[in-house]
């Protein structure tokens, strides 16, 4: 018996995975008892949620190393200038 027995509505896994998008974008402190109960009862959904959190962490790195240096920024500003001049010739 879990701490949530008979006090918190149960949802199935199909409903849970629909919530995961909102969960990964929000503070775990605000996930609520329905989510906590399902995670306690369903290891596969916990793995799924962890995978989606991992995915979000990985996406933060996909364009690493692409931040522009000072020289790159100057180059872009010059390119904008050249583009403007070309546009109005």
């Amino acid at each position, binding site marked *: 018996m879990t701490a949530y027995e008979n006090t918190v509505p149960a949802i*199935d896994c199909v409903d849970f995975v629909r919530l995961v*998008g909102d969960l990964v974008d929000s503070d775990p402190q605000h996930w609520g008892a329905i989510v906590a109960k399902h995670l306690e009862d369903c290891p596969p959904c916990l793995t799924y949620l962890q995978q989606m959190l991992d995915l979000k*962490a990985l996406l933060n790195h996909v364009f690493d190393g692409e931040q*522009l240096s000072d020289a790159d920024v100057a180059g872009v500003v010059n390119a904008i200038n050249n583009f403007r001049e070309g546009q*109005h010739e």
Partner: protein
Amino acid sequence: MTQAVAPAEGTNPEHLVGGIPLASLVRDFHRPMVNFARTMVNSPTVAEEAVQEAWVQVLQSSGSFEGRSAVSTWLFGIVRHTAWRHRRRESRIRDHEVLGAEATERTDPDDPLSGRMHPAGHPDAGHWRQPPSQRLLPEDQTVASELVACVRAALDTLPERQRQLVILRDVVGISAEEAAEILELTAEAQRALLYRARGNLRNELEKRYQR
């Protein structure tokens, strides 16, 4: 009519756009803008050109930016329009991928988790038939470059609108409301499209563990 352009004004890296120096915006947003434009045009060169054109528009209209939306929302909205113009020049046909509420139905055949749950009528209906196997990252959250490369490759396989939304939401960090505004989606369609996009990415990464 050719609009008069004040010489050099727009070239000043300290020129303020929405209260932010142009150089800061270029540093923070130029590459993400090019990546975003790249989802709509055929070549990196054309994407760069579309973004340069966007910057010109930004400079020309920076005085009229009223700050009702975030600067990032405004920038990506402009890129979307300039990239579309370049795309029309390329005479490419848009691969429409408009998602409505149907994408959130439990029986959606394009659901990334389609077939992974027991169907209605089964004793375990609504629960996993084929559960996910393991986390994508190790417990210590070490991010291996090989795995990042897999994510990037998976991102490139997504349909255009899904890729755009993931770039805006998960790479640039734009809010759901702002991303919906940029991509001209309803809130529900944005939510459904993101569910599908992230689910497809997860599926691609899961295959990595099954090889």
